[in-house]
């Protein structure tokens, strides 16, 4: 065991993992964290805590992750390289692991101009792949990045990263995944998948390189709430492809939200059949109350208890 987290145990036993996502409040209101946590508890194996996603200032992912631990939920702390240089990154890793955080997702982060502090200076001292390398060095070598300096204590983290099979250049995405694997990543959560054909092509490329045996891939899904949401995401979010027939299905549905859930469940069942997919990452953004239903309908409950 690298970190001994629940997520690591489930994946290393070959069980199909389920992770969720929780966006911290735009302030210090702990009740928001509690409300969302209650909606996810028991339905997922671990919960991603976003790090100022879309560059909107929110409660820090470290603090929110720590609150989740107190609430009996295992967090996957996200960390972006947008806001921290390598001094802050390594210091925060000391702090996070001291607070009991065992999973960490290494991200570059959304560009600061998408957020509510557009005048800020972005950092990007490291990129996401260099961050993976940094965490692996701290954990496996017991030293700081690029140095002989020994760490007091032991860093135990299950290292994750994101990958987007729908961004360009398509042929290069798998090469980049291989770089992440070499840098030391243990699990991958993908961008939300709607274009199943392209995802399957990507997974074939992953298997051709033997990467599915070196890294656990959790397929990302996001239930669509409405035709408007489907159209908006397809048009405005870079790196998300929603095929026309899916948009049509949601737009024409009598009850679009119900259809969205049904579609999400079908997607999970289809993803589960793909060789090399070891779990799903359900990103029900501001729709956390549907996670219980989705996991129930997809036959993912009860979540296994592992030792």
């Amino acid at each position: 065991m690298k970190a001994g987290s629940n997520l690591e145990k489930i994946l290393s036993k070959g069980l199909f993992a389920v992770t969720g996502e929780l966006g911290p409040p735009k302030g210090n209101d702990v009740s928001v964290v509690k409300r969302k946590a209650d909606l996810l508890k028991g339905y997922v194996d671990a919960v991603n805590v976003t790090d100022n996603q879309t560059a909107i200032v929110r409660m820090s992912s470290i603090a929110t992750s720590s609150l989740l631990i107190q609430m009996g939920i295992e967090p996957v702390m996200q960390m972006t390289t947008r806001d921290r240089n390598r001094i802050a990154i390594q210091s925060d890793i000391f702090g996070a692991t001291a607070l009991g955080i065992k999973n960490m997702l290494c991200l570059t982060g959304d560009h600061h101009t998408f957020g509510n502090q557009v005048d800020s200076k972005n950092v990007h001292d490291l990129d996401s792949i260099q961050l993976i390398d940094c965490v692996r060095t701290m954990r496996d070598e017991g030293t700081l990045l690029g140095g002989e300096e020994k760490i007091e204590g032991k860093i135990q983290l299950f290292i994750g990263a994101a990958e987007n099979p729908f961004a360009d250049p398509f042929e290069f995405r798998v090469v980049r995944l291989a770089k992440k694997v070499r840098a030391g990543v243990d699990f991958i959560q993908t961008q939300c998948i709607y274009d199943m054909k392209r995802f399957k092509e990507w997974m074939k490329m992953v298997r051709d390189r033997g990467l599915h045996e070196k890294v656990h891939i959790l397929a990302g899904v996001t239930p669509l709430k409405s035709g408007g949401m489907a159209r908006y995401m397809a048009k405005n979010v870079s790196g998300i492809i929603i095929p026309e027939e899916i948009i049509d299905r949601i737009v024409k549905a009598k009850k679009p939200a119900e259809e969205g859930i049904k579609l999400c469940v079908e997607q999970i069942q289809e993803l589960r059949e793909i060789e090399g997919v070891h779990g799903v990452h359900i990103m029900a953004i501001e729709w956390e109350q549907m996670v219980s239903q989705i996991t129930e309908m997809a036959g993912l409950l009860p979540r296994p208890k592992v030792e």
Partner: protein
Amino acid sequence: MIKAEQKPMEEILKAIDPYKKILLSGCGACVTVCHAGGEKEVGLLASALRMARKKIGKPLEILEATPARQCEPEYAQDLSELIEKVEAVLSLACGVGVQTLVRYFPKIPVLPGVNTTFLGETLSHGVWEERCQACGNCILEKTGGICPISRCAKQLLNGPCGGSSKGKCEIKKEADCAWQLIYDRLSSLGQLYKLEEMIPAKRWGVESRDSGLRRIIREDLKI
């Protein structure tokens, strides 16, 4: 070359408001090429400023000069006779040129008339784009001659990020994704293997601006 853009008139007028007689100094090098501060722009701006000040009943006397390179001591020093006659200098040279005048003329205010923007190339007439951030350790050999430090919005050394779509950057839809360009270039050179290995973290703190003031000393050239 260095690219610059003239500051807004309002800002320039505010900066020179206390003065009745100024020197407007352009530069014959980079800012001439990008039409921000050459002899022509000096003439145009001088006329505009005189008119604006006349209109509000505060006439302004402007001497005009455009040294070949304002950032070179010998050309900067040539301005000394003119500078003795004025209360302030408005410079249309880049930030380097302004500071050369500051170094040689300690008693006179030197005001910037342009915003120095980037090191870039001409794409077409009237269009310039950033190409270099003078990071101090060139990595173009690794990236097919295309610089991600200056051309990727996140300065990724192991890009592209998930925001690369159809060859464009999600931050600025008109901007090419630098990493798509790198991929295409290495692909056409048959050098995609260069992207298999992680480019390690850059040593910003010892090679770049972050190391403190940078200086080049060439012993063979010193007198």
